[in-house]
């Protein structure tokens, strides 16, 4: 089956270390972490990645008050992506624009806030806000984007734990190929640091990172890594069919080459390297590529002792037939784990490599864990390479969901 070609034509993002692609990329090349200490309700100070974008750039104060943090992140990223794409929304058929946002979870922040609120009133539920339901329905972040942009096509979220960022793009490509929409505004978002529950959950799982220096807390592949740094963020793209993009003379960041989504079916939390390797292999088949075609592998590694090793095993297995190692990096060492935004943000951080032929490193590796010592790791310093024609982006999530997305350099 011949696929319609789908391209990325706009990027809007907010990460703990940057509020646009240029700033984000510069910090990834300069080794600048975005992690700081933050006060977590009931738990004290913990390393976390918070974004510093201005919600009022694209929202009224009242919309910020009524909406959600995830909605504000989504609106900021969507507006920035559309602006970057050069698309004049007002001239478009709004019913042919789809909004597809990957999320890890949604509603925890608002529910925790309300429970805390009524705790100040002896748990009398008459103090529970009527905003709770619209704030916590699972489509809320995408719905806020449609309200803000005035788009009337499909707008919904895709729940896929921490594989969700890739899922937004994959779903967008599918909907464009099905001719359901003409423009997809898609990616992933997360507001996770605003909820204590995710910190407490990872703490109870012995998977929450701690370090006296918060910028050193997220350290995938390092021997002393001790868990996840929870972060918020968003990255939303505009995606179009190639013919449409060319017709309007769009700037093209890259082309969707292939993808795969699969499931471990083995555990609620523990990853399965065999299924992860299979996800990578199937994505390559989908892209009609071999391992030799991939130049950069952006890992999902979250800085947990076991998870990093298992992903390294999966990559080593999937790339075992490769003649020369691909460049392998990790973005969470800079920004922590942006959950539903992770895949989309981490891809964005690597797309400029098509132009500058530089691979950003993973930082904070003081002593490489021998079990993570796989060929091609780009550690602590950026690496110039001769070719970047394809980037493979991994994102994996709880309940055993895996997503691999391959983006290739656009060629006529």
């Amino acid at each position, binding site marked *: 089956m011949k696929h319609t070609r789908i391209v990325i034509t706009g990027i809007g993002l907010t990460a703990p270390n940057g509020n646009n692609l240029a700033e984000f990329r510069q910090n990834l090349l300069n080794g600048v972490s975005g992690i700081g200490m933050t006060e977590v309700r009931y738990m004290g100070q913990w390393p976390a990645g918070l974004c510093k974008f201005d919600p009022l750039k694209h929202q*009224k*104060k*009242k919309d910020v*008050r*009524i909406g959600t943090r995830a909605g504000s992140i989504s609106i900021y990223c969507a507006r920035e992506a559309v602006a970057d794409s050069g698309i004049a929304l007002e001239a478009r058929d709004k019913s042919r624009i789809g909004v597809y946002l990957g999320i890890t979870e949604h509603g925890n922040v608002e529910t925790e806030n309300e429970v805390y609120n009524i705790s100040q*009133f002896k748990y009398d539920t*008459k*103090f529970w*806000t*009527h*905003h709770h339901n619209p704030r916590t329905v699972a489509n809320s972040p995408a719905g806020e984007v449609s309200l803000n942009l005035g788009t009337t096509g499909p707008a919904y979220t895709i729940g896929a734990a921490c594989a969700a960022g890739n899922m937004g793009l994959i779903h967008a490509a599918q909907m464009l190929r099905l001719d359901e929409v003409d423009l997809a505004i898609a990616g992933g978002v997360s507001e996770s640091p605003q909820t204590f529950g995710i910190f407490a959950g990872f703490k109870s799982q012995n998977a929450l990172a701690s370090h006296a220096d918060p910028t050193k807390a997220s350290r995938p592949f390092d021997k002393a890594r001790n868990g996840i740094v929870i972060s918020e963020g968003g990255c939303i793209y505009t995606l179009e069919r190639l013919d449409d993009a060319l017709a309007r003379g769009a700037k093209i960041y890259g082309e969707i080459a292939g993808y795969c989504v699969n499931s471990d079916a083995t555990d609620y939390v523990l990853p399965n390297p065999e299924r992860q390797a299979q996800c990578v292999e199937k994505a390559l088949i989908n892209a009609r590529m071999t391992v030799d075609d991939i130049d950069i592998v952006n890992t999902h590694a979250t800085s947990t002792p076991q998870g990093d090793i298992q992903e390294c095993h999966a990559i080593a297995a999937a790339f075992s037939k490769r003649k020369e190692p691909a460049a392998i990096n990790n973005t969470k060492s800079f920004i922590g784990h942006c959950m539903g935004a992770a895949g989309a943000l981490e891809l964005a951080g690597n797309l400029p490599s098509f132009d500058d032929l530089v691979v950003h490193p993973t930082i904070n590796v003081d002593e490489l864990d021998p079990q993570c010592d796989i060929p091609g790791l780009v550690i602590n310093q950026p690496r110039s390479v001769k070719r970047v024609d394809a980037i493979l982006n991994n994102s994996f999530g709880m309940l055993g969901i895996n997503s691999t997305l391959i983006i290739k350099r656009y060629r006529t």
Partner: protein
Amino acid sequence: MTKEECRKLVIDIISDIAPDEDVTTVKPDVRLRDQLQLDSMDFLDIVMELRKRHGIEVPEADYMQLASLDSCAEYLTPKFQAKA
């Protein structure tokens, strides 16, 4: 609690509920919805804030009493006085 003080408390709440609005020019005898961007959800928020901040209950049947600043003062001032 005077009616003027009551009006000020209501304006304080409205400025939080409708933070984009200029509340300094609100005419007390004109319907709030005719001069500010307020919808029915915002009035639910006003009712909630009266409950939270001041322990004042406004039954649904009385929501129309909150139409203007003057009617708010007329309706709410006795409630504030009863709590004092």
